[in-house]
């Protein structure tokens, strides 16, 4: 996994490489790519935008549904070393930013929680170019680990919400959300964690269930 590529919105993409570990001599790295539809190899168009050891392909250089064969050249006093081809299709590297504007609202007289969020701004959801699916996790603040069992997936499109029920009055809960393209494999990172303390210290639940 010497080369890793990512597209945040299926319109541009970046690739990063990890320098060879045994760099005794000062070594210069350069990235080259070949496209499935073209015999020629080209050098990275932009080594700066995505930070060190990276290459940024803006819209002009980005084609979806075409294989890119990416490789790295490492050159130093001893000569040049070329990495293996890394075949990549932008379709499979779309990993968006996390959802934003997570808001938590307590259902006034019930131990229920309504959670709202919005898609990441960088992904063009409005035109339908990207359609997202969401996943939400919740845990009690006292618990150390997130409970994978608590994971809830909501459908796609538009601004979304989820209603969680049966939470413990007086307890503080932590919620986070992530998303992934409806037709792609990669989940975003989790959103910021949002905290909320459920109102009420005396358990009135008992009354609700009898």
């Amino acid at each position, binding site marked *: 996994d010497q080369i890793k590529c990512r597209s945040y919105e299926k319109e541009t993409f970046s690739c990063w490489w990890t320098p060879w570990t045994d760099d005794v001599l000062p070594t210069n790295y350069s990235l080259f790519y070949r496209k499935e539809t073209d015999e020629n190899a080209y050098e990275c168009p932009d080594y700066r935008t995505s930070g060190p050891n990276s290459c940024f392909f803006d819209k002009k250089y980005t084609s979806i549904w075409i294989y890119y064969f990416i490789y790295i050249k490492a050159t130093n006093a001893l000569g040049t070393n070329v990495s293996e081809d890394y075949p990549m299709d932008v379709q499979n590297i779309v990993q968006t930013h996390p959802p934003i504007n997570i808001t938590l609202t307590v259902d006034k007289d019930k131990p229920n929680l309504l959670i709202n969020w919005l898609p990441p701004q960088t992904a063009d959801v409005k035109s*339908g170019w990207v359609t997202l699916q969401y996943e939400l996790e919740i845990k009690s603040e006292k618990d150390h680990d997130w409970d994978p069992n608590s994971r809830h997936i909501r459908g796609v499109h538009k601004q979304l919400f989820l209603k969680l029920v049966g939470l413990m009055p007086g307890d503080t809960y932590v919620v986070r959300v992530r998303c992934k393209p409806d037709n792609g494999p990669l989940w975003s990172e989790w959103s910021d964690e949002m905290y909320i303390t459920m109102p009420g210290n005396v358990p009135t639940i008992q009354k609700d269930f009898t």
Partner: protein
Amino acid sequence: PICARDGTNCLMTTGELFDRAVGLSHYIHTLSAEMFKDFDEQFAPSRRFPKSVMRCHTALLNTPEDKEQAQKIQHEHLLNLVMRVLRSWNDPLLHMVSEVQGIREAPDTILLKAVQVEEQTKQLLEGMEQIIGRIHPGDVENELDSLWSGPPISNSADENSRLFEFYNLLHCLRRDSHKIDNYLNLLKCRLFHDNNC
């Protein structure tokens, strides 16, 4: 009164037809991506299929390769492109269903999904013909695209070549089903949600 081709007297609205087409194209892509993943995990590590020589029979179709191209293209052309890609998969899917039964270590899930994709692609074609009939009554091109010239290698070819040929077909199906899903989502937002999905 009969529901006419252009949509008059129809209980099923064109928007509803489109929602179902998008749902179906998403389902077909999900199955295709699962099939590719199952096969890749089973065979790729030991076979190292050369991705640089993989070719798709639909490469000849001039389909949009990014958002701007897709948004510039008129919806009737994009709809017809979707139809051509879908039609071009009639024979390859039949071949895929029969071929997978001859691949010894192929996971069972692949045959089940290949049959499902073959059936659902026909369903999607049926729906798309209705949609195009309504949006552009005169426009339904009926000729079958003979883009696929049949399995490139004979049945007697060695196992590795036949596995690579199947791998190539799964790769192309994953790619083309993703394209169709993408184009239909774009068209749905453009035609029925005023680009504000």
